[in-house]
């Protein structure tokens, strides 16, 4: 039993100890999580046909003869989909196969009209990559660790249609709009050990795909679908029997489903049970995984080379044939040179350029368009970026979240916010007043910050004499406090400052007020 006493080293993550003393093993259980992610390629047309790709179009309105598998139709590979896969492969540090192959994977299902899916089983387009992602420890934003998961491969394949089961009338309705849409299947090695890690890795992948534009990767629209392979074992022993968890349709459920499945397997094993190699579905209402009905028992997909598609040949600068039409070839180097900054690079740049905290850079990139908004505000104001970030994260972001708005939908443009911050920076208004102006700006009535300041008389009192008079009035009206200060309790000064602020309705500069009060009291 001594063997089992070893604990997994810190970074391999969560170590779950047995609950039950009945267990023969006293060693902790180590969960192992691998992911298969299907990302719909953002493209005008499908992978092998000219039909349009569009979410929520009327049923069966985007179906070509090929998509419906009419006899005699042939696949024609969509160049855009190949480029998207190459971009994604490069962004995930994969080696791109200059020659990849297409295969048929056979199974009968109502929404698979040809009776097979064209995929890349033998030689996929990209292999052997890696993805770095960060997550915070104990939910503290300030304690982030960076981890890496290996990418086994990326393969191009067709999406299936959708089946709708009408149980009352016992019929199945089929919508082929999705049939044949291009997918990238990203296979992540089992390098993760809990739901949180898996969710962080998928989130980072999602950001990368969105940055590249290779997929819109919206989980709610099915553009990013995650299947998790989960097993548990004791350190030093072979991997346990794994289950595949499907039907995970949000990032939140991803972590939940995996953690539930890990716990279920541990409890099952602790109680002397065994784990079946099965497919389980996550039931988001019940918060648990349940076995899926396995229709054909052990599936044999009878893979076969797709004879209607020649090998997919890609070139680099070296192998590019001299007199080849550039429209007809795909040059990996050309795509590489044009890759946009990836999220990790963007974050690093934000931290270096603006001196903001690393965790702030994560928040900036987590919202689509927020980093750009931030940079735009910084460009238009004299305020230091370190101060701007507070307004972006505390004020703008929380407002948007509260009202479920995207950055693009923000009623306050970066220009208006910069305008406001400039007033603050030039000491024309106080920060209290700035918040009031912002509250007014959210209404989106088309007023400029300056107009609001004027309307509501929020500008700082520039008239020194008036301010002095107000200070004097406060001193005169609060003898007790004045006594206390003079007796050596400077904290009470803050109360007086507050009172002046109140009298001026926030229009006084607290620093100036402090100076005035101190001067008067020391006199």
């Amino acid at each position: 039993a001594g063997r089992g006493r070893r604990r997994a080293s810190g970074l391999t993550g969560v170590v779950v100890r047995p609950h039950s003393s009945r267990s023969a093993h006293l060693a902790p259980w180590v969960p192992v999580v691998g992911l298969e992610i299907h990302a719909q390629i953002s493209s005008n047309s499908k992978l092998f046909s000219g039909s349009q790709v569009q979410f929520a179009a009327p049923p069966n309105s985007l179906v070509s003869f090929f998509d419906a598998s009419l006899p005699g139709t042939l696949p024609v590979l969509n160049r855009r989909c190949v480029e998207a896969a190459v971009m994604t492969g490069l962004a995930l540090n994969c080696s791109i196969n200059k020659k990849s192959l297409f295969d048929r994977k056979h199974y009968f299902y109502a929404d698979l009209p040809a009776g097979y899916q064209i995929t890349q089983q033998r030689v996929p387009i990209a292999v052997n990559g890696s993805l770095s992602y960060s997550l915070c420890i104990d939910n503290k934003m300030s304690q982030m660790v960076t981890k890496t998961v290996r990418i086994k491969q990326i393969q191009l394949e067709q999406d299936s249609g959708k089946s709708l089961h009408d149980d009352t009338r016992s019929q199945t309705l089929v919508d082929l709009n999705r049939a044949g849409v291009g997918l990238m299947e990203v296979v992540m090695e089992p390098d993760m050990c809990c739901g949180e890690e898996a969710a962080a890795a998928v989130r980072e992948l999602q950001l990368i795909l969105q940055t590249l534009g290779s997929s819109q990767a919206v989980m709610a629209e099915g553009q990013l679908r995650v299947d998790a392979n989960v097993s548990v074992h004791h350190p030093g022993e072979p991997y346990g029997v794994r289950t595949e968890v499907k039907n995970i349709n949000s990032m939140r459920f991803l972590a939940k489903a995996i953690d539930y499945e890990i716990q279920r397997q541990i409890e099952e094993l602790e109680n002397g049970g065994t784990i079946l190699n099965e497919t389980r579905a996550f039931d988001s209402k019940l918060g648990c995984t349940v076995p899926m009905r396995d229709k054909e028992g052990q599936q044999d997909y009878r893979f076969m080379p797709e004879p209607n598609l020649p090998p997919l040949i890609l070139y680099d600068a070296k192998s590019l044939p001299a007199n080849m039409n550039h429209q007809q070839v795909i040059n990996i180097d050309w795509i590489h040179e044009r890759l946009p900054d990836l999220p990790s690079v963007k974050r690093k740049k934000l931290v270096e350029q603006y001196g903001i905290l690393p965790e702030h850079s994560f928040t900036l990139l987590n919202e689509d368009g927020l980093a750009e908004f931030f940079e735009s505000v910084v460009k238009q104001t004299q305020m230091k970026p370190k101060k701007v970030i507070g307004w972006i994260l505390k004020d703008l972001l929380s407002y948007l979240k509260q009202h479920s708005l995207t950055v693009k939908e923000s009623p306050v443009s970066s220009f208006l916010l910069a305008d406001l911050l400039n007033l603050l920076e030039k000491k024309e208004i106080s920060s209290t007043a700035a918040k009031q102006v912002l509250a007014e700006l959210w209404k989106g009535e088309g007023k400029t910050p300056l107009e609001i300041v004027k309307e509501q008389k929020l500008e700082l009192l520039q008239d020194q004499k008036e301010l002095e008079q107000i200070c004097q009035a406060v001193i005169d009206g609060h003898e007790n406090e004045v006594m206390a200060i003079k007796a050596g309790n400077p904290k009470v000064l803050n109360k007086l400052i507050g009172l002046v602020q109140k009298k001026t309705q926030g229009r006084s500069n607290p620093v100036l007020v402090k100076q005035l009060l101190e001067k008067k009291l020391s006199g």
Partner: protein
Amino acid sequence: MVPRGVAARWRRAATAPGKGQGSLGGREEAAAGRESHAACLSPAGQPLGILDGIPIAVKDNFNTAGIETTCASNMLKGYISPYNATVVQKLLDQGAVLLGKTNLDEFAMGSGSTDGVFGPVRNPWSYSKQYKEKSVPKSHSEDKESNWVITGGSSGGSAAAVSSFTCFAALGSDTGGSTRNPAAHCGVVGLKPTYGLISRHGLIPLVNSMDVPGILTRCVDDAAVLLGSLAGHDPKDSTTIQDDFKPFELPNLTDVSKLSIGIPKEYHAPGLSSEILALWSKAADLFRKAGAKVVEVSLPHTRYSIVCYHVLCTAEVASNMARFDGLEYGHRSDMKDSTESMYAATRREGFNDVVRGRILSGNYFLLKQNYEKYFVKAQKVRRLIANDFVKVFRSGVDILLTPTTLSDAAPYTEFIQEDNRTRSAQDDILTQAANMAGLPAINVPTALSERGLPVGLQFIGRSFQEKQLLTVAKWFEKQVQFPMIQLEEVKKHDSDVFHHQKSASLS
């Protein structure tokens, strides 16, 4: 030639009691409609193209928009395709008149054109003077009617239609010999072009990696004209050549002394009739005497070809037939217990035994535990077979000369004694290696057998060297002067017309 009036002659020929049954019943009317349409499109000498007004038949496994496309199967009975196969569209664009869809073995799986849901195709030569004079009924109890011979297959309907003068040319398909085999039995030219030269878009597949649209005509020049209209890149078929194809006219070869003709010794196959063997050596002598170099060559892996073909063919069949589930189109069973039971019943009712048998074998070969042992091995053997050809052509041989079939056409009653699998294995033996290697090959009608039936020889050329292949075939065609079919019940007037037409070919 003058296209106008051709169709009228065709109608007389088709209604003459030739009993070719080349066309599937009922399809002629649609074609006749097309013909008058084509005539309208080309008033006052404004031809649409080189095929203006030329009646052409199309094997019923090519999609034709608005006209039933059945593959001679219950599965697709009544199926109206919404689009034209690229080859059909090209024919129409050139002004050709689509006469009708021709009969075949179900989904082109067969070598007799006897296994389709519309019944067997009869060889027009069964009703020729030449055959009737020489064939003697085996016994008196057998009536003469039962003596009719098969066309070969699976493009038997197309071969019969061309052979019986129903049309000038026909499209077939060729996966293991399906164009050349019936061409040989029906005494017509049958060209299987290089894989990738003609688009397969719209051809309902048998084996995608071997299928090619085939061309059936009465002379080699006509085949060249058709090839010129059909060949070239098609954006809808990724396996077609990238380059454009330049149509060519065939020169009249006068000097064959620079040619090297290869005689592959492995084509002395078991079951090769002595008659055909003799004809083959006579043909070789013909070249030799004309000054050509005739050499014996070896294609050592030929003997593995048929079994290898069987594995690859059935595997692709199993895959290609998976789409016929009764959901999107075609036959759907009334079985409503579950989707799975509906699939099963649909496929049981829709496919004949031959198709179902091949699906079963194919799925067996594709099972995970068998894949390496059968499919991958067969692919390797296929590569060896293709390499055999490469080596021979690299050694300086220009064209290979072989028999097309083991014997002349068998009487139907005799043919159906063996099952489809055995027959296909025997009948494809001389033709399917060219499909494995993707090479162009052509059947040239050569002589009549002792029974008065056509016998053809096959020329196999280098990849994409159709011009050389057809040029040699044309020279050979001229030397052998294959006799005209004499349909005994056709009136004298019509046979005069036919004789006239024989010399006035398409070009």
